[in-house]
């Protein structure tokens, strides 16, 4: 857990994590999970990363509404700052 992670660091970590899931297209902030072929289990793994690295707990209802890389980054950044 890091209290000092910057939004840029979180974005880099999220992109790195999603790249490790074997996405179908290049991972950019704008990319949607649908075009990347990132599925619900991938998002569960992303939630594990958020919890372990930033102490941010993402619940099932949070994951349900995530549609894009940027959306995930923004949610984790907002929760990490809270």
């Amino acid at each position, binding site marked *: 857990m890091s209290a000092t992670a910057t939004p840029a660091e979180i974005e880099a970590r999220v992109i790195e994590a999603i790249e490790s899931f074997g996405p179908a297209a290049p991972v950019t902030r704008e990319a949607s999970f649908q075009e990347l072929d990132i*599925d619900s*289990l991938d998002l*569960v*793994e992303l939630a*594990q990363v958020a919890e372990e690295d930033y102490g941010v707990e993402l619940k099932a209802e949070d994951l349900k509404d995530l549609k894009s890389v940027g959306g995930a980054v923004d949610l984790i950044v907002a929760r990490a700052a809270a």
Partner: protein
Amino acid sequence: MVEPAEREGCALVTGGARGIGAATVRALAAAGWPVGVNFRASEDRASALAEEIAGAGGRARPVRGDVTDPAAVEALFSRLEADYGRVAVLVNNAGVRVDGLSPQLSEEDWSAVLDTNLTAAHRTTRRALRPMLRARWGRIVNVASIVGERANPGQANYAAAKAGLLGYTKTVAAEVARRGITVNAVAPGLIATDMTADLDPSLAAHVPARRLGTPQEVAACVAFLCSESAAYVTGATLTVDGGLSA
């Protein structure tokens, strides 16, 4: 048939000190897994079993922990991960019986059986799945019972828990199948263990095989489901009952 484990990590058998659990510990150790022998009260038996396995060239260690206690479950996983690496094979075997006809089953009789036999399996499975998902490999076997599919008056709580465990097995199996993780159940019938020692011996006459099963016969099926050979078997229930429910 059951090839030696070449995977990283270890196996965890809940309720591993006695009965089907102890036989499963021996079978998984023989297949090459370092095994965590979880126990709640049977410390002497868990320690003796770990020593027996070490004597036979395997690796095992007792891990205390009441599976109805979430903090204890976290602690036992952490201890095993420190010693042996991630839990790659989880056998949810811990179980209790509190029998009585349903009008006489108290809230406590109900809760105790549901918590140990069903809810605890979710507690351990949820914890085990995280590293399994990352590793893209895992084996989970839930020890259910033929009572989960077939009436047995006097065991409404046990039957509900075991039927729940079969439903849980199928759904979790479907959720994680694309990650190389299999989730299966075995459904033992009448097996000669401490848990069935109080049963009428004449019950064997109702079994087509005309005898009770042994813990080793159940453990062999669990070990198969935990093996590489069973990679395409998931969401299944393997009945081990000498034909009783056939």
